[in-house]
């Protein structure tokens, strides 16, 4: 099996799905001739032509609106946000039009909305966003956020084949840093299933995307100190895999949640509530959170570094928790 980056895995999924089904089309800014700001769609136009790979004006609302309309005729559009930050410019189309369509009048919207997300590349306040919770909090949407090349390819295929609007977040810090062997043949990864990345008995660390790797590094460090952390990578944020989380907590009796999104209103709160509802008896200690502070994403490297969750921060919180 060839080793490919997370970015290449996404690119492969796009090529393979467009080859498999002419109902799959791509639409976005600079995705055609240029191949996308991060080159995720490179070569797509040359192979599948301008009817299927559509360069649009700078109009996120038009992109998402048009994708909804296309999906009503049975197409499966994959729309790109050049940076996920710009999804704020089509927030209404996504949350009011696409998300509510099936519930209101039974019209499915088989659309994928994907884009580079997250920080760590000095993108500053408008090119580093982690807006996932806005959509986790919007009934009618599914939210996927892979951390490995294998999952990225398999989950994007599932997203494209899904009958609902799926937000597919791609962590730009991981784009070219993650490399792994990915099977060349067609496979999918189911939406809604978390992965236990590392087994452990002392505490559970729940995380996703780039922070899943941070958490794994922290777990390795802790292991040398005799603390065995179980690390769960959510992979899908909506629907949330309650069972995997609860099973782990019932085993380790301690929960730490780590994410790059800001603290107040981040998914850690939702997970804490679920665990308090359904596994309260199993908790031997407080639920700990390691998150970004409640600020915009700062630009200067020292500021962004102090903003982002780090291996040290996760490890430190885990040590505290392990003491209980």
């Amino acid at each position, binding site marked *: 099996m060839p080793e490919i980056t997370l970015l290449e895995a996404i690119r492969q999924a796009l090529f393979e799905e467009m080859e498999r089904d002419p109902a799959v089309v791509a639409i976005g800014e600079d995705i055609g001739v240029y191949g996308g700001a991060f080159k995720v769609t490179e070569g797509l136009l040359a192979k599948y032509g301008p009817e299927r790979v559509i360069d649009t004006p700078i109009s996120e609302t038009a992109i998402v*609106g048009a994708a909804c309309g*296309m999906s009503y*005729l*049975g197409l499966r559009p994959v729309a790109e946000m050049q940076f996920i930050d710009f999804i704020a410019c089509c927030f209404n189309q996504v949350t009011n039009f696409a998300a509510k369509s099936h519930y209101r009048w039974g019209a499915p919207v088989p659309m994928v909305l994907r884009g580079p997300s997250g920080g760590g590349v000095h993108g500053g306040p408008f090119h580093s966003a982690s807006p996932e919770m806005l959509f986790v909090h919007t009934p009618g949407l599914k939210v996927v956020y892979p951390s490995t090349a294998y999952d990225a390819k398999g989950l994007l295929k599932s997203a494209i084949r899904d009958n609902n609007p799926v937000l597919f977040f791609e962590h730009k810090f991981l784009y070219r840093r993650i490399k792994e062997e990915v099977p060349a043949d067609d496979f999918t990864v189911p939406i809604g299933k978390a992965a236990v990345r590392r087994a452990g008995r002392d505490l559970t660390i729940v995380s996703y995307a780039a922070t899943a790797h941070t958490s794994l590094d922290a777990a390795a460090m802790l292991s040398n100190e005799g603390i065995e952390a179980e690390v769960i990578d959510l992979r899908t944020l909506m629907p949330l895999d309650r069972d995997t989380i609860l099973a782990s907590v019932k085993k380790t009796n301690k929960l730490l949640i780590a994410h790059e999104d800001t603290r107040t209103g981040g998914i850690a709160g939702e997970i804490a509530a679920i665990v308090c509802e359904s596994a309260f008896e199993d908790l031997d200690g407080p639920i700990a959170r390691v998150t970004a502070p409640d600020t915009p994403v700062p630009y200067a490297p020292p500021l962004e570094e102090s903003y982002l969750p780090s291996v040290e921060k996760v490890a430190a919180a885990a040590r505290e928790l392990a003491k209980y």
Partner: protein
Amino acid sequence: MTTALTPEQHLELYYFMQLNRRLEDRMVRLFRQNKIVGGLYSSLGQEATSIGTAYALEPRDWMAPMIRNIGSLLVKGCKPRDIFTQHMARYTSPTQGKDGTSHFGDLKVRHIVSPISMLGDLIPVMTGVAMAGRYLGQKIVAMTWIGDGGSSTGAFHEGLNLAATQRAPFVLVLENNQWAYSTPVSRQVPVKNLADRALAYGISSRIVDGNDVIAVYQTAKQAVEECRAGRGPVLIEAKTMRMKGHAQHDPADYVPKAMFEYWKARDPIARYEAYLNEHNLWDAEKKSEIDARIERELDEDQKFAEESPMPPPELAAQGVYCDGCHTIEAEWHRPKKELLPPASSVEAIWKVPDFGGFKGAAPSAKQPPAPKAPTKPAAPSDIAEAPPLRVPFGRGPKDRSFEQEQREKPPARPHRHKRRRR
């Protein structure tokens, strides 16, 4: 293409307009009896616009109504019971009570997209419908409506601009009924004709008397066929008047009384009845026959709605996601292989013949050089140099004959063209 109507069609137009009005009359009564859930929005005085435009569509064509386009829904095949039950939030309504008013659709048979309340959103959506229809080779046209007020939304701009760039077979009807809730057009934008919004996109536009159902139909029909031929999109401004408040709760005291009188004298149904008389297209007997039929149908459907149950509470939690309840299948009217390599493959490069240079006077300290003459609606050559936009039917940008004709033929927009003749 002819826009002439048969005698039967003339009477059908009357039937729909009268059905629209009587239906809404009844809903006003139901509203007063507290049988309507939520607000009730009237299209009184705008029937000719709703009906004349939708009448230009074929069954295969797609439309998305706005809140006042009850008439368009009726023309596209919806029944009064759909309207009654939606407004009464009954289990038997198209949305089973999950949403109300004209917020429903029909993907499979009637090709109707449900609106949402946020104004303007349907414009990019129906642009996408039009693009998808062309992509699938269906030769369809998509139509939606927007109010004078809604034309100030960002979605209007982004949607119509994308439609123009894509030359989508899309007709946008701008219903200028003089008011956006309590705000007159003059406070929404200082232009006399909202059709001028089209100039920003290099697309053709038309202005029509929105209370003249024949003129509306013919204008819409021409626009629809222009789009079907690959020369869309088209913007139509229909000038009409909202004869009631924004909704039932609104007495519209902010509207000058004389303005209501001015427009009452131009009531679209009264005018059309006069027109039918004038041209001997019917007689008193025929009229009462149609009116009777309308009352019959309305009696029946109102009864159906009033006797329908409210939805069961447990329905509230159901149907947020499509978990296999729908099978999604595109209707292909062209060979898929056209869209797969090698057929689909192209050389991915831009060509920019004239480099966008400034054609004015040479650099100088004189007054800013007088710029060149204005553009006529986008010459296809403007985008032909981009990777070819394949138009699977009609005549597309790559079609020289079309380009030829465009050069000779003055652009579609009557009043710009008129001016050039001076």
